[in-house]
């Protein structure tokens, strides 16, 4: 999937959606980001949902001077601080380009306009929110119950691309361990074989 509109189109596959999608398309704006540019700064309200059509971004919080990585976004993913976007409250997160990137954006105001104009957009919004929910709860359960070893293994199996495109220390932070902790996990797994994934 290379474009935001395709992601929306998938949620409303019927023949009646063509005209709606054309209309929605006119509200999606493309822009380029250089590596290290910010897509979102902490203490500002997230006013756009962005689709990564090229490149990669990282989301993190800064707590007591420590960067806590909360997500990586690669091609085909939606990015933004969805909580800040939903509530239109200031975010505590930063989103920054890890590589030169291209994003496609739709603003909060435009999205709500589209919701109010087109019942099919309400359907797309409902389905996208449900898909996003499924992803976040899967991760939440993993943080709640899985050991760091198992979280690491799941990441290797499910998102191996991260290990090619993201620095180690950021992956460690994402897993909720120190870089030294991550090295130890890798060594243990090499010595003892994989842990059982429940």
């Amino acid at each position, binding site marked *: 999937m290379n474009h935001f509109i395709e992601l929306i189109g998938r949620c409303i596959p019927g023949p009646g959606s063509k005209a709606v999608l054309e209309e929605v398309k006119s509200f999606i704006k493309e822009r380029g980001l250089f590596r290290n540019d910010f897509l979102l700064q902490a203490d500002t309200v997230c006013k756009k949902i962005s689709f990564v059509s090229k490149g990669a971004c990282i989301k993190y*919080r800064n*707590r007591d001077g420590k960067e*806590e990585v*909360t997500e990586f976004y690669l091609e085909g993913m939606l990015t933004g601080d*969805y*909580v800040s976007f*939903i*509530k239109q409250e200031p975010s505590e997160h930063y989103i920054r380009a890890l590589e030169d990137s291209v994003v496609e954006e739709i603003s909060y105001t435009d999205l709500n306009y589209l*919701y109010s104009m087109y*019942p099919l957009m*309400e*359907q797309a*919004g*409902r389905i996208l*929110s*449900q*898909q*996003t*929910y*499924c992803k*976040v*709860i*899967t*991760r*939440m*359960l993993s*943080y*709640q*119950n899985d050991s760091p070893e198992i979280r690491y293994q799941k990441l290797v199996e499910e998102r191996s691309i991260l290990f090619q495109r993201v620095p180690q220390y950021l992956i460690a932070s994402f897993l*909720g361990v120190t870089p030294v902790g991550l090295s130890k996990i890798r060594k243990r797994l090499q010595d003892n074989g994989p842990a*059982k994934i*429940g």
Partner: protein
Amino acid sequence: MNHFIEVIAQFIQGEEAVLETVKTFIKPRSVKKNDFLLQAGSICKKATFVNKGSCYMYRDVDGKEEVIEFYFEGMLNSDYVSFIRQEPSTQYIRALEDMEIEDLSYDDLEYLYAKVPSINRAVRMITEGLYCGITKRMLSYQNDSPEVRYQKLVDQRPVLFQRVPQYLVASFLGVTAVGLSKIRKRIGHAPAGH
């Protein structure tokens, strides 16, 4: 909020006819303490609102119960992932007390999406609310120490300590029952109700 329809009504204002239609699909029922609302291996076919009583959701991992959530009056419960995807659940939901609940089935909801499209808006907004809650919890599990998680629970959901056995609260926090006792001792006070 005492009824399922009120949760939906928040997001569909001024559409009484829609609400009347939705209402006819919401079915009340009673559940006895220890009864299951959902069993692992089966598909979650209903979204349920708790009118009275409480229940909890857990997974069984190698014989160990991992508590995922507690639900009290006014809350919706289901394995929402299983419900959305109509795939078998890995979770159990069981009544901690005798309960009165209201169910809305997946099939009826699908029918309603087609029949009264504004129900999409209500479900999106309910889902967004759930998303915000889960994200907050995820960030807490990712970055907070068990002490901080415990303190947040005491501050934000003190009712848990009054209505739920200790060992289940410990599991919810991702610590052992002994671990929870140690945290309380370190922090040096017991929560209200103990």
